[in-house]
């Protein structure tokens, strides 16, 4: 016995020194530093190329409503407004549908249906953005005009949300396309979060005499709420940054209107549309300034949402101590 143990120890001792260890550590550290370097480089380049625009436009860029490259007047508010209006409305719709889909898949659907259905929802995310745009222009927009916007306008046209002219292309089309594009993210993440809710929570509610819906409301949703909020953040990030499909259906008019029938413009769209014709230095720099703004808006949205998740999960962190 002792001889064998001694032999093993000798063998173990021979394996030192280990060169792999520092090499591995160096490689992974380098990989992480690369990410940091890319982000830092991006911000520096965007900020410095936007500096001409920042100097020319001043702070008024943030609330200026005129975008007139010919007269060198650049105000970004219509784009900020358009981005937030479409992304937030689409997110609200996608959350309602997506959480419903997730609840159905996890809590109600028979097993043979849940698999294929979940897969199809994930497929929605695999469709290229430009295809959504094409579909939006040629199918969705005319359909919305004839069957949604005209009836809405004729019955509720007195509301500011449905005033204007029903032409199909506009904020409503952008919201619908964005909703479909954000939906798979929200649904898939919510589904994973909801299926991670322990069965003991459902049993706790059931044992108190809860119905199926009451069990979901009492045992499932509160437990999953921080994760569902996280799903919303991911969806919002996609909605704010989405460019191609929105550009194709929103109408690209830098106006601020409450109406869903009106045409709008987003930050991402104006950059995509106008960078080829931005011939003057100030024009080009102002577009990049919008890019900088988009970056900042995304950061703020993410930070705010993260704060919200943190606040919400703060009250339930103790649940892990329970076990």
């Amino acid at each position, binding site marked *: 016995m002792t001889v064998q143990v001694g032999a093993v120890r000798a063998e173990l001792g021979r394996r030192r020194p280990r060169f792999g260890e520092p090499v591995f550590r160096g490689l992974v550290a380098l990989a992480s530093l690369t990410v940091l370097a890319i982000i830092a480089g991006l911000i520096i380049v965007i900020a410095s190329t936007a500096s001409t625009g920042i100097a020319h436009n001043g702070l008024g860029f943030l609330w200026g409503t005129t975008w007139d490259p010919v007269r060198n007047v650049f105000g970004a508010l219509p784009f900020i407004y358009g981005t937030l209006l479409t992304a937030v409305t689409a997110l609200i719709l996608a959350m309602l549908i997506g959480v419903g889909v997730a609840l159905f898949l996890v809590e109600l659907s028979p*097993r043979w249906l849940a698999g294929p259905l979940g897969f199809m929802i994930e497929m929605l995310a695999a469709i290229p953005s430009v295809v959504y745009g094409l579909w939006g222009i040629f199918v969705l927009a005319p359909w919305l005009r004839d069957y949604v916007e005209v009836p809405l306008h004729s019955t509720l046209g007195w509301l500011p949300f449905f005033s204007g002219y029903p032409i199909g292309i506009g904020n409503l089309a952008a919201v619908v396309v964005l909703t479909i594009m954000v939906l798979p993210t929200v649904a898939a993440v919510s589904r994973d979060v909801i299926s991670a809710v*322990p069965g*003991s*929570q*459902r*049993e*706790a*509610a*059931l*044992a*108190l*005499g*809860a*119905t199926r819906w*009451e069990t979901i409301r*009492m*045992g499932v949703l*509160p*437990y999953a*709420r921080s994760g569902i909020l996280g799903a919303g953040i991911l969806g919002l990030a996609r909605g704010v940054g989405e460019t191609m499909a929105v550009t194709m259906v929103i109408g690209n008019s830098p106006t601020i209107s409450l109406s869903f029938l009106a045409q709008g413009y987003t930050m991402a769209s104006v950059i995509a549309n106008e960078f080829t014709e931005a011939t003057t230095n100030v024009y080009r720099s102002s577009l990049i300034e919008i890019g900088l703004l988009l970056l900042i808006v995304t950061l703020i949205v993410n930070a705010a949402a993260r704060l919200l998740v943190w606040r919400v999960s703060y*009250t*339930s962190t*103790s*649940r892990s*101590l*329970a*076990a």
Partner: protein
Amino acid sequence: MADRPGVAVENRGVGVQIEHLDAYYGNRRVLHDITLNVAPNTVTAIIGPSGCGKSTLIRCLNRMHEVTPGARSTGKVMLDGDDIYAAGVDPVVIRQRIGMVFQRPNPFPTMSIYDNVVAGLKLAGIRDRSLLDEVAERSLRRAALWDEVRDKLGAPGGALSGGQQQRLCIARAIAVEPEVVLMDEPASALDPMSTLKIEELIDALRTSYTIVIVTHNMQQAARVSDQTAFLTVGEEGSGFLVEEGPTPLIFTNPRRQLTEVDISGRFG
């Protein structure tokens, strides 16, 4: 159920008769022909080795067994003379009359302690704040938790210690004044001091409820129960009832050889 909900009544426990109960997971039979009589206002312990189906048995008593996909049962469970598996019986109503406490404490972690206790009452549609307050305090007192939480009723249920959480779950179960309380190894995830508290609690609650407790701890069964039912695993893998009777009798003078071996030997 004639009296006002949430109002404690002594000796309101009712009897449960289990008649020829078989339980299955898919095609696998886990319980074989269980017939057992649970008298009102007694504590009945269900004991037996792992895999004998004692948890399945207790889950059949409030129709929680059928919640598991593929699970079903045959036979009758009579609650106060009425079969809970009869056609047209709503399991939701059954579960309001038969409370349950689980092995792992499962308070609603995001709900306050107060809301946890009155959760069942709110499900039943009771909104009267003064009644809710009254029931919350009484239930927490009876669950021996009031003194520890009276100053933090608004704190989340998940913030309590494991033993406190289990007493919170007991308070939640008894707040709706069920006729029967089922306990599935309620102390097995707890430390000895918390276990002792739970056992004292069971002793105090027996005057008001019929209690059925599953335990793998023989001493616990001997300490808390009036009646003991002993299950074991048959050759084909399904659990069956070996014998039942008054706890002192089962532990000191088991009628069957099998019981004696199991009680004095393999478990402790």
